[in-house]
């Protein structure tokens, strides 16, 4: 379970201080799916960034099974991100210098490779990889560069990259924003089925009603970041 109390993030805009996020309380049980909704500027992405440990909150607390996230140092945050977090960006953010296969392997390396030498040669890993590739339907795309793929294919690769390390917390920031309905459904099917199978927690920041419909829980943020 992840518990948030009084979480706050502020940014300076010239002389003014803007509250990007103010979340008095939230609880996310393990294995639940959440849609984080709200207008632009309500702090949806900021919440995901704080949960991923990418940015530090200016106030409040995030309790996790691993400890109090807001008190983690840089090394602990890096460890949290590499092991527990599967992050999916709005613009896919694949590394174009690498092939599809190498992008996914990088995702695995940054999690498992730090700690286990030869991890990618184990039968267990190879089976998991193959299963993931088949589930995402990207087996035929392995040697292509991301720029040669369609948007839907790129997002499926991004999902595979995020899920290869079997994270306990999947954070998806507008994953279907640039996809058509068919691909949107496909991506959400993949995410929700993985989370159900792995008992992982899913938080999806979204504007899209279709995406929202895949999540059994909703947290609404308002302008100024209030929940």
């Amino acid at each position: 379970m992840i518990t948030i109390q009084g979480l706050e993030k502020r940014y300076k805009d010239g002389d003014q201080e803007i509250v990007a996020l103010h979340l008095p309380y939230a609880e996310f049980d393990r294995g639940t799916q959440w849609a984080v909704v709200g207008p632009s500027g309500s702090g949806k992405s900021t919440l995901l960034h704080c949960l991923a440990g990418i940015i530090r909150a200016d106030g409040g607390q995030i309790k996790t099974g691993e400890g109090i996230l807001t008190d983690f140092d840089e090394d602990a945050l890096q460890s949290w991100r590499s092991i527990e977090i599967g992050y999916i960006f709005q613009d896919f953010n694949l590394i174009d210098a690498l092939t599809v296969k190498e992008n996914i392997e990088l995702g695995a390396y940054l999690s498992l490779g730090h700690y286990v030498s030869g991890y990618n040669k184990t039968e267990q890993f190879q089976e998991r990889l193959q299963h993931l590739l088949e589930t995402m339907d990207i087996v035929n795309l392995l040697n292509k560069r991301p720029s040669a793929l369609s948007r839907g294919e790129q997002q499926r690769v991004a999902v595979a990259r995020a899920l290869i390390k079997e994270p306990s917390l999947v954070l998806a920031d507008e994953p279907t924003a640039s996809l058509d309905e068919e691909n949107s459904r496909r991506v959400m099917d993949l995410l929700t089925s993985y989370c159900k199978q792995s008992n992982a927690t899913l938080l999806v920041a979204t504007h899209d009603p279709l995406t929202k419909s895949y999540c059994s829980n909703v947290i609404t943020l308002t302008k100024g970041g209030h929940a």
Partner: protein
Amino acid sequence: MILKLGWRLICHKPLQSIFLVVLMALSVALSVLVFSLGQGIHQGLVRATEPFSLLVGAKGSSNQLVLNSVFLQDQPIGNIPYTEVDKLRANTKMVKAAVPLAFGDNYAGYRIVGTESAIFDVKASQTMPEWLRVVEGRKFEKPFEVVIGHDVAKQANLQIGSKFHSIHGVSAKGKAHDHQDYTVVGILDDVGGPYNQAILTDIESIWLAHETAHTKSTKETVPGVDKPVENVASKTEPARLEVAEDDDDHDHDGHDHDATNAGTGNTNVGNTTVAESTVQQATAVQGNAQVVPSNPKTVGRAVTAVMVEPVGYAQAMQLMMQFQRSKEAQLVFPAQVIVQLFAMMGQGEKMWLPVGGLLILISLLVMMTSSYLSSLGRLREQAIMVAMGASKSFLMKVSICSQAYLVVGGAFIGWAIGAACYAGIASMLQHSMAISMGSVWQWQPTVIAAVAAVIGLLASIVPAVLLQRKSLAQYF
């Protein structure tokens, strides 16, 4: 993964990467080439002078004497009487051996060196074998038999039994002495020096060849000689001088007229009388000791230079002092002449090495700046990797790895280019002057390239560190 990622990142921007590699390569290549050439030429020139402990020749330019006698280049500076050879040989306290050399003719541009069989006993040092070793055939035993150098056999397509006419002077386009054939009786082993391009023959060949061909007035002198050697003979052979005919139809540059015209002993004019009086004159002229000519055929003859092997260094210095008082001849240390030449060349080398070092430094600065700017363009990718769990040390390693490929690759390619250019120049010098330069596989240029690579690697840490201070939050 780090190696693969670093490689992929530089391959993703091929033009920029190639530019940086070329920049590094050219800088390293210049330094490697300058250094290698300096070392190689020095080694080649020193190696060539090793058999020549001392050289005695006519007064004049010591550089020209060495260039002509050791490197078979340039024109002879003049002649000295053969009695100098006799005098040196008689001085057994100071001189171990004295071998005469006479120049003036060529075949296909290869210098014909008139000498004596004692040249085959010369060694560069006591511990080394003979300098000139006949590997095919035999040494010359009589006039107009030749032993040719290793390169002459290959390039002029001569073998044992081949015959040819010599050409007057040092140019292959001179007038041929077509009245007499030379016959190849031996071929030398590769000596790794200019005498690979020599044609050795009995010194009498030179005298006889010109004696037969030239009937020009013996009043003619060779540039650089203060007193024509024929003055010795002219005092005793006035009749012969009067009947001398002018011979205007050939080039006399470098031509050793005096060697043939002085007191031939074979003419029909007062033959025996001339020879005796000439011997008396020659003996008297030598001054200190009474020197008896070793061979009557050498009476009144002249040579271009004498290779002298001293008994020891102290004796060499004493000989030097003696010749400083001589008006007819000079004694030089060929190795010293080379050192002086290099002192002049070394100024250029001293200038070019810092320039090469500066170029490497500039190229490293350019690479560092380019790496930093390029990495700024990859901050978004770095942000993605941070979100995926990459540590700061991972990002730094990737950055340094990318740089390392460029720096090390550039240094290696630069070393290869420098070595290849050196090998090409060495080959050209080998072909044209038979100067054998040092091997292309010298450790110093490798050290230059390695040091440049290490400095480049260390320098690549700077942009990686600067990037660590950048906030990635803006990319999320």
